[in-house]
């Protein structure tokens, strides 16, 4: 049985510390804020980030440089004694980092060693994929088998995000035409969804209570109709948020009441997502359990 490393980027919400604990390696996402370079969870904390964002700093995200990525791969393969790497970067629908990594993985020295997973996950669902990969590796599956399995079930996941404001989404330009149409005269709280590739408009609400109800109903419907039913408990249920943990805790309670009997994992959203949706966002997500 080959020794397999599970590698992801900091969009998974897995911190360096948690990664060490779980046995998952985490590539920090790079940021340029007002001209200065930062790396998530290395020299950029959540608090520091929101402080800068709040001051209307010029935040730019980028993908990990090929050099930094190759250095990590080399280290895992050559120094840490791993035979294969399963790399689960953030969704290819949201960033080019997946395709660059895939290109690198085709180079001779990584061929049949590094397997880049394009399963279009982000944040809490990306995190769950890493845990699934680890379990599959422990069960003796090869890196290519793990990659194939994760890609096979890539659509068995669903995310709903309610934004406090459209400001950051517009500012970043990372917005589909449908979502752009949400910009209206009235103050609205848009509810977006990620189903596979892109962030898209799902619904609108005027108040956060309305938005939360919309999200809970939507996720419940997905579980009921697409993921084997609420009672089957065949999904992982997750909550993510930007900045406001207190509100997120309250939301978690509401979700737990609507969907009793689930363990709900909650994380702050990764900063490269946060910089596009701004503070005050709430998300509920689910991904179907992987059976192997």
């Amino acid at each position, binding site marked *: 049985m080959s020794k397999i490393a599970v590698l992801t980027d900091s969009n998974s919400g897995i911190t360096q510390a948690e990664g060490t604990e779980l046995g998952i390696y985490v590539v920090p996402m790079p940021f340029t804020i007002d001209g200065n370079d930062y790396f998530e969870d290395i020299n950029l904390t959540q608090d520091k980030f929101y402080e800068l964002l709040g001051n209307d700093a010029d935040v730019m995200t980028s993908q990990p440089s090929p050099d930094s990525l190759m250095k990590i791969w080399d280290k895992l393969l050559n120094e840490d004694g791993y035979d294969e790497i399963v790399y689960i970067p953030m969704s290819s629908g949201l960033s080019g980092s997946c395709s660059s990594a895939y290109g690198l993985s085709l180079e001779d020295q990584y061929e049949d060693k590094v397997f880049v997973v394009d399963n279009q996950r982000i944040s809490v669902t990306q995190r769950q994929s890493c845990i699934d990969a680890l379990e599959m590796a422990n069960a003796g599956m090869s890196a290519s088998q793990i990659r194939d399995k994760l890609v096979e079930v890539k659509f068995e996941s669903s995310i709903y995000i309610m934004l406090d404001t459209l400001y950051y989404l517009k500012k970043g330009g990372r917005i589909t035409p449908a979502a752009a149409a949400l910009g*209206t005269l009235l103050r609205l709280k848009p509810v977006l969804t990620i189903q596979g590739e892109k962030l898209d408009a799902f619904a609108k609400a005027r108040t956060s209570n309305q938005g939360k109800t919309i999200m809970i109903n939507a996720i419940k419907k997905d579980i009921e109709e697409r993921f084997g039913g609420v009672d089957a408990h065949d999904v992982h249920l997750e909550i993510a948020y930007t900045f406001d943990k207190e509100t997120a805790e309250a939301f978690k309670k509401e979700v737990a009441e609507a969907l009793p009997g689930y363990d709900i994992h909650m994380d702050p959203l990764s900063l490269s997502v946060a910089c596009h949706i701004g503070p005050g966002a709430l998300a509920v997500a689910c991904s179907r359990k992987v059976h192997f």
Partner: protein
Amino acid sequence: MGNNTLNAKMISKMFLAGAKNLDAKKDWINELNVFPVPDGDTGTNMTMTIMSAAKDVSQLDENTDMQTLCKTISTGSLRGARGNSGVILSQLLRGFTKGIKEYDELDTVILAAACEKAVETAYKAVMKPKEGTILTVAKGASEKATELANEGVTDIDKFLDEVIKYADEVLSKTPDMLPVLKEAGVVDSGGQGLVQVLKGAYDGFLGKEIDLSINEESATPVANAPKMKAKTEEADIKFGYCTEFIVLLNKPLNVKQEMDFKGFLESIGDSIVMVADDEICKVHVHSNDPGLAIQRALKYGQLSNMKIDNMRMEHREKLFHETGDGKWLEIKTEINGAAEQTPTYRQGDTVPLMNGSTATAGAKEVEEEMPHKDCGFVTVCAGDGLAEIFRSLGVDYVIEGGQTMNPSTEDILNAVQKVNADTVFVLPNNKNIILAANQAQILVEDMPGDKKIVVIPTKNVPQGVSAVINYIPDASVEENTEAMTDAIGGVKSGEVTYAVRDTVIDGIEIKSGDYMGIGDAGIQSVGASIEEVTFEMIKKIMSDDLELISIYYGADITEDVAAKLKMRVEAEFSSCDVELQYGGQPIYYYIVSAE
């Protein structure tokens, strides 16, 4: 035809006479509205409903058979139906004509049966029939008719006389059935309308002198309102804008041009002064469309010294300074004048520049072929700001109207046809339009094609906004219908307007000219200051669980004044978000929602 039967020719004559009589009494009926709000328009709605049919009937051949006549009355009134009472009237006519269409000669037995059929049809059209209304009056008339027929009364004259006398008697008892009528000291307006139709028809039967020519104005009052209004009240301002300017002539006007220009001005207004020399031409005109005069004048040269005054506003300010004077009739007239300003342009009309935004938006909706989609939206509202808000929320077609001008079933139908979608959700935003929308829904079902109308029964603008916001593009029609219908229950709302007469409602004494805050549960506040009344109303409709107060300010409120109110509301409800929006709606100073 003897004295014991009626033929098609007589029915046609009686129908037209009934319609004409209702038309003559409509202003009086408007005043019977329980709420003393300036949009009491039962008479107008019923008249427009019946006139839509009368127009068609008057064009029928003299020897038209009963079948054709009945079909014309039924279809015409159904298409023209607007407002609650109008829709009920159209249903009465539909049921009645169903009962008589098979016969060439009608005796009292057939008439009595047709009356029964009419009442049955009308009751079915209303979800929760209420007694003490037009329905009760119709039922009374029908019962009396059956009783007379059973007694063997065959003389039509006696039959009609007694039925109408009884209907009048029932009408006079409506205040005993509906406490709101009693409190307001009026009989039911819809019932009164029906009695007036019957009385007119009886006069027609008796051959009393009635002008039976039906003119188009009554059927299409928006476009031609000035003419219609001209005969009613003295204080009426027929043309609302005083427009003056000087044309710096490109070249001297020749005699023909001068005549043409003057003729044009005469066609759009009155009080015309036009003096030209070789270089300039001075123009003064009172019209309802200053833009028309300006646009025409631009043909001859550049304009200078332009001045446009809204004479109705001036008139109105004057009236408001005379509060307590009991001159509600004049205030009302002034408001009816404002309603005329709802921009409605007929084909071939030059759309004036001044209304550019509304006009181009409307034109775009008509002209551009919309891409086909599964679901579309049609809504009804008055005010450019509100219309813009609805459009920004994805509504495909906004019918101008609402408070002062209820669109007819046909207006709604036309709007729906312009929306290139399989299912069109209709948001009436007014309780008086819901029935007309429901009729449109039924008419569409009978039409070829798969188009479907779903009416979300929104009773006011906040409910309409709430409904459309809750629409989810990915969900099914059924899911959306449920979600939107649920959503309208989650928003509280209130509107501020003024009283057009003295009355007592819910034990609150209201004086003509007072401002009133009306919430979902009736009158919330009354007073002499718009801001106080609005503030008090918001306090009454608010509760702790609400997060957002939206204030839409109307055409008669400036942004500064509205902003001041907003600050006051924010200070009072610090845990709540307060949002101020320009609604531009007439008559209602503020529309407020809390959710």
